[in-house]
């Protein structure tokens, strides 16, 4: 357990000191969302209508942006070798990296999402549903993403391939996440959507680390 947390701690320290990954992801998220009013026009009714989808898609893409570095940095400097031969099971190691990725790249997006939601004229009920759905749904993005990140880790231009591999698998999260927000806006029950989202997350919690660990073993061999 101590090793597990110290690995997360190390990744957080690095993210804070290097800073760029966090701020880049955040700026990307904000810019993508700004592009939509510029693209479809400033009518508040239209923005409120597309708001939930835009926010979720932007969060998906911003998460994807930092995903390729999940294992790559450790792979390039040889740290991954040493992590893999250590006493921590590889699946647990993947889980630590996933948690670190989520905390550094996804959590900041969730924190500023309400402000951006306001700018898209999303009503109050929608905003709280948005935050809750992001909190429940985005861990799946990091978990499924870890499989793609592990598979493309050793490739020079793995980022493009990574998006092709991972984005189709993100579709259920997007659908259930947006549906939850839209249900809240329409004053309907949010629970079924959130339960489905949680179910997907739990499934990803099982499959993600297993598959990513297998992919890491193969990429290193």
């Amino acid at each position: 357990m101590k090793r597990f947390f110290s690995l997360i701690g190390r990744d957080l320290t690095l993210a804070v000191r290097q800073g760029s990954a966090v701020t880049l992801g955040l700026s990307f998220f904000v810019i993508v969302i700004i592009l939509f009013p510029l693209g479809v026009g400033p009518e508040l009714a239209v923005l409120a209508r597309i708001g939930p989808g835009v926010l979720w898609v932007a969060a998906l893409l911003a998460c994807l942006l930092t995903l390729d570095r999940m294992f790559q940095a450790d792979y390039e400097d040889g740290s991954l070798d040493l992590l893999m031969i250590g006493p921590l099971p590889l699946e647990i190691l993947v889980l630590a990296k996933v948690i670190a990725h989520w905390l550094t790249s996804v959590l900041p997006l969730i924190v500023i999402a309400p402000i951006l939601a306001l700018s898209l004229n999303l009503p109050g009920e929608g905003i709280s549903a948005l935050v809750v759905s992001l909190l429940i749904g985005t861990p799946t993005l990091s978990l499924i993403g870890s499989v793609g990140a592990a598979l493309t880790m050793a490739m020079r231009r793995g980022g493009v391939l990574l998006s092709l591999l991972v984005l189709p698998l993100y579709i259920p999260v997007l659908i259930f996440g947006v549906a939850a927000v839209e249900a809240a806006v329409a004053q309907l029950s949010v629970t079924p959507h959130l339960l489905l989202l949680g179910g997907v997350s739990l499934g990803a919690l099982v499959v993600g680390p297993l598959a990513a660990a297998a992919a890491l073993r193969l990429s290193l061999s």
Partner: protein
Amino acid sequence: MSFAVRNLACQRAEQLVFENVSFSLASGEAIWVRGRNGAGKSSLLRICARLLSPLAGEITWNDEDIFKDSETYVGSYHYLGHQEALKYAMTVRENIGFWSMFHGTEDVVSALEQFDLQKLADTPTGLLSQGQKKRTNLARLVASSAKLWILDEPLSALDKHYIALFKERLMRHLAAGGMALFATHQDLELEQVKLLDLDDGAL
């Protein structure tokens, strides 16, 4: 304690790199792996560190297969590859501290002292020279309590003084019952070690 390699064969990118490599190490022994470029020195060391799977053959630690029953083997060896495995945004102390915690040893301070790193301890490793980075890694090695050292080119970018220091630490490690398996291009002038030449696969 014993480490034994039997009839090992290695294949990389569909090419057979070496085959029928066998050797064994007992307490206090060291093996210096040599061979031309591409002879498979790094691959052999990576296989022994459980980072690669061999095509054929077996490796045992105290008569247990290191790939099947790895529990006793993990923690008994320390692998130092050619990559630095240092995070440039963290200081020397933090880097060494993380790894010694991760691999289960805590004695960071004395390790720093042994390789004259006290003054650099709070410098981010990104600012160090190649030789200083290498020393940081050697300090990690000394800080570990591992019995078996697996070292891939541990001495590149080091000057004579530190090579001598490394030799001295290696001898001390062997005298204390440790083992070492290493590959280096430097001429170490070590008489007590066995040579393994991968070009002809014999000791």
